[in-house]
C-alpha cells in the first residue's frame, strides 16, 4: 500500500535530505508540499507533480496520510499539533520540539490518536551505529567502562533565515542542534539512565557554540562529550571497554576502528547505508504494521529532557582567553 505524504517546509534540510529521495519512492508518494517561500514552491512545481504545492498547511493536509516536518525548530510544536489534530502520522525533524513540555504534549496526542510520531535521529540507521550497539550489547569487547565523544566542525549550514541563531526559534545552540543527535545515539547505545552530570558551555547570553558534559550512568559507565561549531575537533566517538577501545567517526560512518588488548587497531568496514531512506521505510512499515517506529517519540523526549537539565545547570567552560570567564 502506498502512503501519501506531505512535506511541511522545503528549506535546506528538505532539499538536501528528503526531496531527492521522494522523487522515486515506491512505498511513499509525495502528494503535498507546504512552503511559504514562493520562489521555492514555483521551482518545486516544475519538478514534482503533487496535488498541492503552496503555503496553506490545512489545504495540503487534505491530500495526505502523513507528513514530514522540516520547519524551523520553534514551529515543530504548533505544526505537529495541527497535523495530529487532523489525524496525520508524523516524521519530525530533530529536535522534536524546543522544550520538554511541548514534546510531552505531542506524545500524549499521538498516543491518544494512535498516530505514529517519529523523530529524524537518522544516525541510528547507519549500519555502523547498529554494529556498535551490537558490540556493546553482546559484550564482544567486554563491558563498556567509559566513552569520550568529540564532534566539532566550523558551522556552515546554508541557513537562509538565521533561525538557528535565534534563541527563541532554535531552542538552543550546538547542544540542542548537534547534541540531540549525539545524545540520541548515546542513550540508545547504552540503554541506561544518567545518574549525575556536569555541563558547561560558552554561552555569553546568546546561544552556546561549544558545550561539554561529563556523565555517569546507573551501571557505572562514565563519559565525556565535547561539541563545537567553532572548530574542527577530532571527531571521534571513542568507547572504552574492558578488553579494547572502539572509535567511530560520525562523518565517515562506514568504518569502526577497534583496538583489542592493546594490539594494533583494525578497521571494520560496514555497509554503506542510507539513513534517511531507512527512516522513511521504517516509518511507512510502522504505520502499515501498526507497530512502534524504530525511533520512538519517547526516546527523543529523553534526549530533550537531558538537554533541558543541562541548560538549567550550565557553567562556563574555562575560556581563559576571554578574561574573567570560566573558572572550572
Amino acid at each position: 500500500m502506498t502512503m501519501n505524504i506531505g512535506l511541511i517546509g522545503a528549506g535546506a534540510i528538505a532539499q538536501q535530505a528528503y526531496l531527492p529521495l521522494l522523487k522515486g519512492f515506491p512505498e511513499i508518494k509525495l502528494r503535498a508540499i507546504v512552503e511559504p517561500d514562493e520562489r521555492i514552491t514555483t521551482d518545486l512545481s516544475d519538478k514534482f507533480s503533487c496535488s498541492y504545492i503552496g503555503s496553506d498547511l490545512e489545504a495540503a493536509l487534505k491530500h495526505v496520510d502523513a507528513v514530514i516536518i522540516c520547519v524551523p525548530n520553534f514551529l515543530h510544536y504548533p505544526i505537529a499539533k495541527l497535523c495530529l489534530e487532523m489525524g496525520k502520522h508524523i516524521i519530525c525533524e530533530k529536535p522534536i520540539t524546543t522544550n520538554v513540555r511541548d514534546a510531552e504534549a505531542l506524545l500524549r496526542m499521538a498516543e491518544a490518536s494512535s498516530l505514529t510520531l517519529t523523530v529524524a535521529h537518522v544516525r541510528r540507521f547507519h549500519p555502523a551505529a547498529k554494529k556498535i550497539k551490537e558490540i556493546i550489547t553482546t559484550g564482544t569487547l567486554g563491558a563498556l567502562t567509559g566513552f569520550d565523544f568529540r564532534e566539532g566542525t566550523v558551522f556552515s549550514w546554508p541557513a537562509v533565515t538565521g533561525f538557528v541563531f535565534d534563541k527563541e526559534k532554535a531552542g538552543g545552540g550546538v547542544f540542542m542542534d548537534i547534541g540531540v543527535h549525539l545524545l540520541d545515539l548515546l542513550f540508545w547505545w547504552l540503554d541506561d539512565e544518567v545518574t549525575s552530570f556536569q555541563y558547561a558551555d560558552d554561552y555569553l547570553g546568546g546561544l552556546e557554540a561549544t558545550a561539554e558534559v561529563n556523565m555517569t550512568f546507573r551501571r557505572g559507565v562514565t563519559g565525556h562529550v565535547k561539541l563545537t561549531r567553532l572548530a574542527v575537533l577530532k571527531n571521534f566517538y571513542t568507547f572504552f571497554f574492558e578488553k579494547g577501545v572502539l572509535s567511530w567517526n560520525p562523518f565517515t560512518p562506514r568504518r569502526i576502528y577497534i583496538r583489542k588488548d592493546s594490539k594494533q587497531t583494525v578497521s571494520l568496514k560496514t555497509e554503506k547505508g542510507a539513513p534517511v531512506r531507512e527512516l522513511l521505510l521504517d516509518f511507512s512499515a510502522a504505520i502499515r504494521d501498526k507497530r512502534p517506529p524504530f525511533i520512538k517519540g519517547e526516546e527523543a523526549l529523553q534526549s530533550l529532557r537531558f538537554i533541558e537539565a543541562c541548560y538549567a545547570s550550565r557553567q562556563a567552560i574555562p575560556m581563559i582567553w576571554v578574561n574573567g570567564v570560566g573558572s572550572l
Partner: protein
Amino acid sequence: MNLGAARVFITGATGFIGGCIAERLWLDYKIPARCLVQNYAAASRLARLPVTMYPGNMLDKNSLEQGLGESNVIFHCAYGNSKDPSLNTRINEEGLQNLGKIAIQHGVERLIHLSTVAVYGPEPPERVTEETPVRLSEDEYGSSKIRTEAICHDLMARGLPVVIIRPTVVFGPFSPLWTIGAFKRVLNGGWENTSDIDGLCNPVYIDDLVKGLFLCVENEAAVGETFILSGPESISWNDFFNAYKDVAGLNHSSSSTGQNALKSGSTLVGPFLRSNIRLLRRVIEPQMIDIYEWLKVSHPAFARKLSALLGGGVQENEKKKYNQKTVYSIEKARNNLGYSPRFFAAGMEDTTAWLIYYEYVPNQP
C-alpha cells in the same frame, strides 16, 4: 564620549575582529551590539552573545539603515573578501559611502574605520608612522583601503567624526590568518628552510587591538585622526612562527629536512612518508617538477602541502616580505590615547590555551 553609554553598530561582526569587538563590548560594557550579518553560516561565534543580528550587506542601504537604528557609534570592519575584485571594490568603497551617508543623516558620533598597514605598500620603509606616505600598489587589498581612507577623509570634511585604524599582524583566538593560518602553516611544514629569513613581524594581540579601538571612542582627541595599532615590540618572523612551533611541540632548530611537517602528518600518511622520504625524493622528484608546476596553478593548497612534505617551506616569492625590517610605531596611539598593548608572549599564552582547547594542537588528550 563614554563608550559605556554608547549604542553600537558593527559591520563585519561575524568576522574575526568584528566578533571580538562584539564580545568585549558585552563582557566589558554590557553593550548588546547591533550587528550587520551578510552570512548567517558564519555567525556561530557572534550568536553566543545577546546581540541583535540584521541580515544585509554594505551595498544594501536599507539593511544598513535598519542595522544602524539608533546607534551612535559604528565599528566598520566589513570588507570585500569575495573572489570578485570588482565586487570587493564596490563593497569597500561604495559600501563605506553608503554607511557614511546614513551615519551623517543619523548624527553618528563616532565611526571607527578598520584600515590596514598594507596601505604602505608591499615594501614599506624600516620605520613607519602615521605620517609615512601611503602607496598604491598591485596589492588590491592595500590599494582599496587607501581609497576607503580617502572616503573617510571626505566624510570627516562633511562632519562625521571618523577615526582610521591601521592594525598590523593581528593574532589571537579565531585569527584566521595569523593564528589558525600560521599554526596550520607550521604544522604543514610551511615554516622550514628559514635560515635566510631575518625580517621583523609586528604582532598585536586581538584584545589589545580592540582596547585600542575602544580608546578611540572614549577619547575626543582621536576624532579625525589615523592610528597604527600594533603590539609593544617587533619580533623576528622566525620568533613569531617558532612560537607556534613551540605550541605544536615541533623542533625549530632543524630547518631543512621537512621532518617537522612529517611529524605532524596524518596518522596514515605520516609514518609511511617518514620511513620512505629519501626513497621518495630520489625516485619521484625529477619527474615531479613539471607536475608540481601544474599543481601550483591548478591545486595550490595541495601543492603547498606536497612542497612542505618534501622539504619545502618559505617560498621564494615570500622571502622579500619576510625579510623586511619594518617597525610600525605606536607612539601616537600611546601618547594620544593611552594605548598600552601587551607583549607578544602574553598574547601567545592565551592563544595557546585556545589552540589547545579547540584541538588544533595534535596529540593533546
